């Protein structure tokens, strides 16, 4: 009888605990995908200054959508004068074929995602640093907004994105859709920047699966793409990407990283030469940086040639910025805990010495040994020094031979992938 009473007290305690739990977290269970998103959050979501004057709640649709192209018969800032597709307060895209995007009206998202690089309509303004900063821990990286990121020397061309998406993802992407929407669903995207180690807060959606987030579910991380083969690179501020976690926890860090390969391949598995991308389509199964087995041993930590991992597979964002960069091909300003400067590819690079075309060493040596003059060059002897270092002429660019999909030199098959 006494035992029975004790059991009831425990049971009662459990009920009380569960009840409090429901009270505290009940709203989370009730929340939908929009209110769980960065834009729909009632605390830090969309909050257009002009619309907030009507006391619309933070996260309310009206901050982006004017159902009747006006509120109360007049149009809050910015007053475009006309109704815009999707009931937005301004047109999605100006049609600018290249940057610089001089005006926020070039892309609807720039109205708020500009921090102090322009006048943000959002209260308060906010930062969106690049991948190297947010996930690479490289806080010296300067673009603090999406607007600034796309206004760098090299960038994902918004016009091309819109054009490509209209053709290939027409099931959801319309002629007036925003180029950003090809990769982001504004009603779902979360603030991964606040939780870099939690892919459940991913901000991306695959173009082929626009109605859902990518990276937040089982089967959508780099560990799923390359089980036990994805080693996250060093993070500039310590530990490994994306959050500074323990590098030896290869699987754990891989599970924190969305499967960017599959994500990017939604577009880059197409032949995109018409958009100036001569090395497409990219087949990551056929590149050594991808799933093809390695052949050399000159790799740096955290990639460990003596370790248990027989082959490493990289994520696209280990080397590339998604929005824009000062480096060509959108190469990150920081890779594997080191700064990278590849402004043209033709510069002297880290070795100096007055010879050009060595700039890529900045990038390649982040993970590969022996690329400098005093290094143990990894190239096989049958190539010969003059292949890359001809007498009386400039060095050859690394990218003459090493690029996505390459397996030949000057048209002669090399016998194995060169990238």
């Amino acid at each position, binding site marked *: 009888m006494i035992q029975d009473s004790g059991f009831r007290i425990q049971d009662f305690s459990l009920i009380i605990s569960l009840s409090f739990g429901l009270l505290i977290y009940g709203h989370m269970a009730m*929340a939908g995908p*929009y209110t769980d998103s960065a834009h729909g959050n009632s605390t830090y979501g969309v909050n257009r200054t002009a619309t907030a004057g009507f006391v619309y709640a933070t996260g309310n649709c009206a901050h982006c959508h004017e159902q*009747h192209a006006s509120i*109360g018969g007049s149009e809050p800032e910015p007053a475009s004068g006309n*109704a815009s597709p999707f009931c937005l307060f301004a047109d999605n895209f100006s049609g600018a074929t290249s940057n610089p995007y001089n005006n926020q009206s070039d892309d609807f998202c720039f109205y708020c995602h500009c921090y102090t690089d322009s006048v943000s309509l959002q209260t308060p303004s906010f930062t969106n640093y690049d991948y190297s900063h947010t996930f690479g821990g490289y806080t010296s990286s300067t673009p603090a907004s999406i607007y600034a990121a796309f206004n760098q020397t090299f960038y994902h061309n918004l016009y091309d994105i819109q054009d490509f998406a209209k053709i290939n993802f027409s099931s959801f992407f*319309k002629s007036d859709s925003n180029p950003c929407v090809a990769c982001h669903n504004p009603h779902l995207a979360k603030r991964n920047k606040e939780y870099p180690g939690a892919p459940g807060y991913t901000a991306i959606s695959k173009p082929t699966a626009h109605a859902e987030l990518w990276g937040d579910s089982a089967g959508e991380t780099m560990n799923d793409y390359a089980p036990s083969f994805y080693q996250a690179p060093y993070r500039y501020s310590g530990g490994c990407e994306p959050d500074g976690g323990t590098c030896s926890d290869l699987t754990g860090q891989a599970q924190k990283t969305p499967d960017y390969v599959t994500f990017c391949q939604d577009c880059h598995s197409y032949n995109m030469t018409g958009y100036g991308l001569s090395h497409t389509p990219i087949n990551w199964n056929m590149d050594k940086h991808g799933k093809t087995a390695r052949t050399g041993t000159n790799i740096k930590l955290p990639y460990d040639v003596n370790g248990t991992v027989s082959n490493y597979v990289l994520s696209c964002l280990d080397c590339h910025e998604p929005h824009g960069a000062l480096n060509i091909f959108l190469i990150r300003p920081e890779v594997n805990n080191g700064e990278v400067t590849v402004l043209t590819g033709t510069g002297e690079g880290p070795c100096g010495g007055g010879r050009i075309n060595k700039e890529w060493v900045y990038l390649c040596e982040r993970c590969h040994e022996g690329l400098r003059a005093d290094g143990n060059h990894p190239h096989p002897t049958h190539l010969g020094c003059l292949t890359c270092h001809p007498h009386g002429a400039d060095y050859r660019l690394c990218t003459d031979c090493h690029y996505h999909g390459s397996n030949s030199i000057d048209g002669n098959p090399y016998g194995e992938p060169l990238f």
Partner: protein
Amino acid sequence: MEAKKVYLIIFLIIVCLFSRHALAKVKGLCSNCHTMHFSQTPWPTGWGSSGPNPALLVNDCVGCHSSSSSSTYYDLGGCEVPTVLYTGAGQPTSYLAGGNFWWVKAGLGGEDTKGHNVFLGEDDSLTEAPGNSVGSCGTDACHINLSEQYSGPDMVFVLNGKYGCQGCHLNVKHHANDHPNGESGLVDSADKGWYRFLSGHGFTGEGVKGYEYKDWEAGHPNLAPGGIAHNEYIGDATATGYGFLQAGGAGDGVTAFCTGCHGNFSHGGQGSSSPWEMHPSDAVIPNSGEYANAFGANGTGTGTYDPLVPVARTSLPSSDPSQVHIGTDLVQCLSCHRPHGSPYFKLMRWDYKNWPGGGDDKCSVCHTIKN
């Protein structure tokens, strides 16, 4: 003497034969609403203080359609009269599908952003109807506001000097042969007075068609979804213009009527699907994407009718008022707004402005993944 008896009998027979018509529309004693000389002593409680009124009425529109009871209608000498203005101190808890003017009336709600302010000289919120596409009828035209007496041409329905209720209910026919007071019925013609006496100008010969529920949706806004105790509206997704005739017109439903003043929000101004430039009105709710789950349909094509988010039908009477047919039924102006007044900013039917965090997200009834 015998001849007089015969005449009397014939008269009584005639009265009996046509008694059904006499019971239609309003019912009860004539003196409920009319007075011959506007000179009673003592002055009856409930009669208006100013007069005499047109048609020998004892009160003006709002005077008769006011009540201190928070309900959709009240009993006036055996006649059920819909309440458009609740006169109690606190906001009404029950009101018409079209809302209540309590929220805009000075001294009561007093908030012009929550309804159409029809009270003389009171509207100080807007300078013209948002989306006005008429523009040239003068500053006191109904298209501009409803709280100033119109001074322009009579527009067939003798509109001079009129304002307020009569700015929308242009040609009120309380004695039209529609359906018995207190009973439901389809109202679809000028002879029946049009739905809620909502018509175009006389020269159009057009008006709103709709199904009037018998008790003005008593219990609204707390009616549970899935019932049949509600009005039914008609819409036209094929329309191209605004009003009843302009630029092809906007059909013969409430949307057509609303766009007579708010023309730019009509088919003529809202763009077309994929993408819309304004929120569509009288557009079919697609049976695809997130909309396939609208009204709880979950892809079955059939959802549950919600009086808080009323849809329009392509024809009336509808096959089952308790259901919403995704892919056929339409979103309309009234899906989101209450024309008289509501507790919420911009006449919304739910507390949209304070969502998320608070308020209510009825948008997700259709936009099912935007919750």
